[in-house]
């Protein structure tokens, strides 16, 4: 649409265009407000109110008490610690393995298309389905893993893989990584493919070998893709739920912060503390997301 910049008619036209713009955007804004802002506000209001007489107290404003309660509750603190462990382990593995897979797939070889298609499969599976599949592997009584190890005489009796503390977190993280790795690998592969061949040719002329090329050419130019992969990996790891719930339920040794939110809110009906915990998680995620956004900006500038 063309309109004049000078004169009264032009101003009016510009104003009308501006109004039209607002009107066109308004439904979307109202929808966002209704679906996001309203529940968010209601949720926050609930997080600063008492649980009511269901929890033996009068309904009313309690300030930050619910937040202090969940921060001092040992079960919630353990769930926070577990979540940090899931995130650190998952993101590290996804990054290292993702780069390895991307570098491998970057080379042209026979059957590369088939490998790529197979690689995407775990990502295409819903996390609940992959959890159910892996449950068949880790099942202490009839699971594949125990069966193989018993037949190979590596273990003498069935092992309960998800009963130990750290071990269980590692196994569940591996299941999570199995599902997310394809996505991370594809992001990094796309980044690799965007690096011009001339850069490698020039560095080869300068005497750089494969390792130096990787260290001084690939990694720096891959930084934007790494930042995206980090962001995606971290957000998915923070919100880990399905794999834990399917593999080990709400057991304390593997309980993540989101499982704790679910348990507090929907099992015990303690909506006040549940929403407080959810808001703390949302704040942590927002801070991390903001940090990654800055990282991404620095990487791309």
């Amino acid at each position, binding site marked *: *649409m063309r309109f004049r910049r000078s004169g009264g008619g032009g101003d009016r*036209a510009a104003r009308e265009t501006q109004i*039209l713009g607002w009107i066109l955007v308004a439904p979307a804004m109202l929808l966002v407000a209704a679906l996001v802002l309203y529940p968010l506000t209601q949720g926050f209001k609930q997080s600063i109110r008492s649980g009511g007489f269901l929890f033996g107290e009068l309904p009313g404003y309690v300030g930050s008490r619910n937040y202090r309660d969940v921060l001092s509750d040992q079960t919630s603190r353990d769930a926070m610690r577990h979540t940090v462990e899931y995130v650190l382990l998952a993101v590290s593995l996804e990054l290292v393995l993702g780069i390895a897979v991307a570098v491998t797939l970057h080379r042209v070889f026979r059957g590369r298309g088939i490998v790529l298609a197979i690689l995407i499969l775990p990502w295409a599976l819903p996390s609940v389905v992959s959890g159910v599949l892996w449950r068949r592997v880790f099942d202490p009584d009839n699971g594949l893993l125990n069966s193989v190890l018993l037949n190979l005489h590596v273990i003498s009796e*069935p092992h*309960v893989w998800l009963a130990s503390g750290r071990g269980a977190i590692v196994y569940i993280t591996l299941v999570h990584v199995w599902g997310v790795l394809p996505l991370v690998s594809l992001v990094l592969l796309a980044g690799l493919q965007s690096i011009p061949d001339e850069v490698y040719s020039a560095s080869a002329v300068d005497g750089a070998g494969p390792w130096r090329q990787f260290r001084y050419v690939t990694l720096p130019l891959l930084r934007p893709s790494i930042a995206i992969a980090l962001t995606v990996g971290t957000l998915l790891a923070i919100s880990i739920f399905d794999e834990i719930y399917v593999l080990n339920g709400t057991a304390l040794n593997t309980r993540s912060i989101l499982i704790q939110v679910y348990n507090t809110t929907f099992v015990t009906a303690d909506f006040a503390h549940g929403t407080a915990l959810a808001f703390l998680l949302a704040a942590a995620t927002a801070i991390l997301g903001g940090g990654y956004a800055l990282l991404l900006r620095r990487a791309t500038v």
Partner: protein
Amino acid sequence: MLGTRRVLIGLATAALTLAAACGGSDSGSSGGTGGASSESIRGQTITVLVPYAMPQSLLAKFTAETGVKVNYVRTGWDATHNKLLVANQAKSYIADVAEFDWSFTGQFAGAQWVEPLDGLVDAKTLADLKSTDAAFISGGKTYAACYSNDFRVSMYNTKMFAKAGITEFPRTFDELAADVQKLKAAGVQYPLSIPMAATEGGVTPWYLLTLAMGGQLFDDQLAPTFSDSSSAGYQALQWEADAVSNGWVSPGSVAMDDAVAFDKFTAGETAIVLATGPGNMATANDKSQSNIAGDAALGLVPGVDGPGASFGLPEGLSIPVTAKHKAAAAAFIEWWERPENAIAIYKTQGSLPCGASAIKQLADSGELQGGDVLNAELPHVSPLFSAGAPIWYSQFSSDAQGLLNAAVKGQMSVGDALDQLASKAESHNQ
């Protein structure tokens, strides 16, 4: 410019039309919730939310009798519980007839999420349920009509027992220990099925064992009585932890829910289910659902000196305060509770009826599987909480699920787990 103006005028007209349409729709809606006794229920459609299946033929019978259509929604027990919690908290409609477990009483009645049935449901129907409805009474009002007369009883595989040279089900825990060794010697690797996962089904065996060992979980003031090492609650959890370390149960029991534990029994992998519902007899002896059909029998829950105490976990039908068709919902509850319908449901679904008339008819006709044992077990059955489940039961149950599971996994000692649980229970009860 003219185009822009036209678009603005068009949008304004559309907005006005939409607003008018919305207004028309509001004014045309009925908005009534019903519930009046004179309300004509014919032509209404009610939603029923229950975690167990119901044959369409039976629902069609109800519709033919009353003219009320039924939208029967079946979800898992935990999912049903969670859906009800969220809908009730939001004060939004979810169903006209809804599941009401014995453990809901304190919370749901306290929050006034369900209607008292006195006055809504026929007094004769409620009188017939008197013996089983105690768990649903709070403040003198009855909040649900019992449809599943569930209590804990033991079940065993007679063929495996015979192979091990055992002639009768053990009456005491000492006898049980001896029989478990005999079963292991006879080739049953893990004789017992006990669910110990961090779920509601995983804590039920502990409740039962505590009562069977002669104790209670709480005193009259709802103060916990299970943290002392000489208490029945402590002994019960220690017994469960020992069952894992002694190989009486499979290693996977620590992550096993009650449904899976029962599946292992019906698959012929285990010989004894220590705590199950009487309705499961029909499943265990059904060839289409069980590998051990014909071999399953009921046994009295073992105790210290003889058969021990058990407890009831009845499930009922309630009418949420947000129900749209309360009179039709009441009619559905009355229909379900009629002896001929309750018996038909028992035969297809396995829920043991609650009404005295239905139980008598079943016993008289010889159709009650394991009837002798059930009759013998009933005098030992008492509610877990004599004054109904407390308002904080769901918090206690959630705490217990995690802590008991950690103890049987060996992640913390039995003493530590029960100390923490007692401390949390005390804080809930304050």
